[in-house]
C-alpha cells in the first residue's frame, strides 16, 4: 500500500480526504490511480504535454522526485507520497 497525503488544494475533489491509500509501483501510477478514484485530479497535476506541472512538487518519503527518477520513481510497500504546491516559501 502507498499512502498519499492530499494537499488542501485538491481536497474538494477527494471529498476532503486528507490521506488516500492505494496500490502503485511508480509515481506515474499514483497519479493514474488517484485520477480513476477522483475524476479531474490528473489535469490539475499534469500539463498538456503529460508532465507534472512546474507548480506541483511531489515527494516520496520526503525526497523531491526530481532528485529521484521523476514520474518513473519506483515505489515500495509503505512508501509515503506528498503532493505540495511549488509556489510557497522564500
Amino acid at each position, binding site marked *: 500500500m502507498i499512502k498519499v*497525503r492530499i*494537499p*488542501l*488544494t*485538491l481536497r*474538494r475533489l477527494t471529498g476532503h480526504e*486528507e490521506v488516500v491509500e492505494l496500490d502503485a509501483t511508480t509515481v506515474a501510477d499514483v497519479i493514474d490511480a488517484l485520477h480513476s478514484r477522483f475524476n479531474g485530479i490528473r*489535469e*490539475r*497535476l499534469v500539463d498538456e504535454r503529460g508532465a507534472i*506541472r*512546474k*507548480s*506541483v*512538487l511531489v*515527494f516520496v518519503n*520526503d525526497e*523531491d522526485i*526530481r*532528485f529521484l527518477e521523476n514520474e518513473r520513481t519506483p515505489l515500495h510497500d509503505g512508501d509515503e507520497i*506528498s503532493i*505540495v*504546491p*511549488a*509556489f*510557497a*516559501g*522564500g
Partner: protein
Amino acid sequence: MEKHGFMKALKCRECGREYPLAATHVCEFDFGPLEVAYDYERAKKTLTRKTIESRPQTMWRYRELLPIAGEPTVGCEVGYTPLIRADRLAAKLGIRELWIKNDTVNYPTLSFKDRVVSVALSRARELGFEVVACASTGNLANSVAANAAAAGLKSYVFIPADLEQGKIVNSLVYGANVIAIRGHYDEVNRLCAEIAGKYGWAFVNVNMRPYYAEGSKSMGFEIAEQLGWKLPQHTVVPMASGSLLTKIHKSYQEFAKLGLVTETPYRVHGAQATGCSPISVAQKSGLDFFKPVKPNTIAKSLAIGTPADGFYALKVMKETGGCAEDVTDEEIRDGIRMLAECEGIFSETAGGVTVGVAKKLIASGKISSGDSAVLCITGNGLKTLDAVVGHVGQTREIKPSLREFEALIGAEAEPMKV
C-alpha cells in the same frame, strides 16, 4: 474606503481565474500562484507624487499599492530606508554611478523582510488570525517573531537547524516558538506547506503569500522615489526564492502605469551564491526553467534549492534584458568587506553576494561602466558574524603601556610635532 481597499481579487498567474481575498495562495485548477489584483484606476486618483511626498517616511506611503483593506496595524514604521550614493564603491567596481538601497537598517529587525511581514501580519489581523507562522532561512523568522510580539500575536517560526547563532537568538528573544528542522530550507518549506493545510494559522509565506510577497514592492517604490522619481538603469537583486526580484520589477511597472515615473529602459539582474545557484545557472544557460539543487553556501539566507519564483525571476530577467551571476564563498566575503570598507555598511552574506555579482557583471560588461546601478542590500551583517569571523582582520592586543603602543605603531604613524 471600499470593503477591500484597493484590492479587487486574488488572481491565478497561470490561468487568470479569480478567487476571493482570503488566506489562500494556490489556484485549485493548476496549482498556479495567486496574486493580488488592484483597482489601478482608483489608486491613480489618490496616489500622486504630491500625496506620497506629504505622507510619513515609511513603506506605507504607497498604501494604495499594498494589499490590505484598511489601515496598517502591524509594522507601521517599516521601510523608507536610506538610498546611498556609493562613490567609493563605484570607483572600486569601475562604474560611473552606484547606489546602495540600505535595508540593513530596516526597522525593526534589520532586513527587508520587515516589509513583507508588516503587510502579511496586518492582513492576517484583518482576516481574523491569532497565530502567525513562517518557513524561514532566518531573516523572515526574526521579523515574524518581532512583529508578532509587538502586535500581541502568537508565532511559530520554522528554520533549518544549522542557521547562524545570530539569526536563531534574534527569533528566540521575542518569545516566538522556534522550531528547528534537521534539514535544509527546502525541507522546512515542504513541511510547512503540509502544516499550513492542517492548522488554522496565517503562514506568511504559504497561505498568506499573495499578500506577503507584495510587501517587497515597497523597496522598488522607494528606490524610484529616492532617485527623484526615476527608474534606475540597472538594479541588482539577491535571489533566494526569486520573489524580491519579481516584485522590484512589478513595482517599477506599477509606478510607470500610474504615471509616477516615465518608463525608461531598466534591467533587473539576479545574484546568487555559487553553492546554491539554480536560477543563475539556468539564466546563464539560456533556459527558462531551473534544475533544483541541494544548497551548500555560507549565504544561508539565500540557500533555497527549489526557488518558488525561479521561473518568474528568469522571465523578468529575460524581459528586461537582465542577467544572473553567482559568486563563491570567498567572493561573498570579499563583497562584504568591500561594502564595509568603501561605504561603512556591514551587510550579511546576501549583501556580499549582491556586491560580488555586481562586480562580475560590471567587469564582464553586462552592466556598462558608463551606466548607473542600484544594489539591493537586504540584511544586516551583525546577524551573520559566523560567516566572517577570522576573515576580517584581527585585533592587535597590548598592555595599557605607551611603550608597547609605540613599539606596535612603529612606522605606521608619526607623532605630532609640537
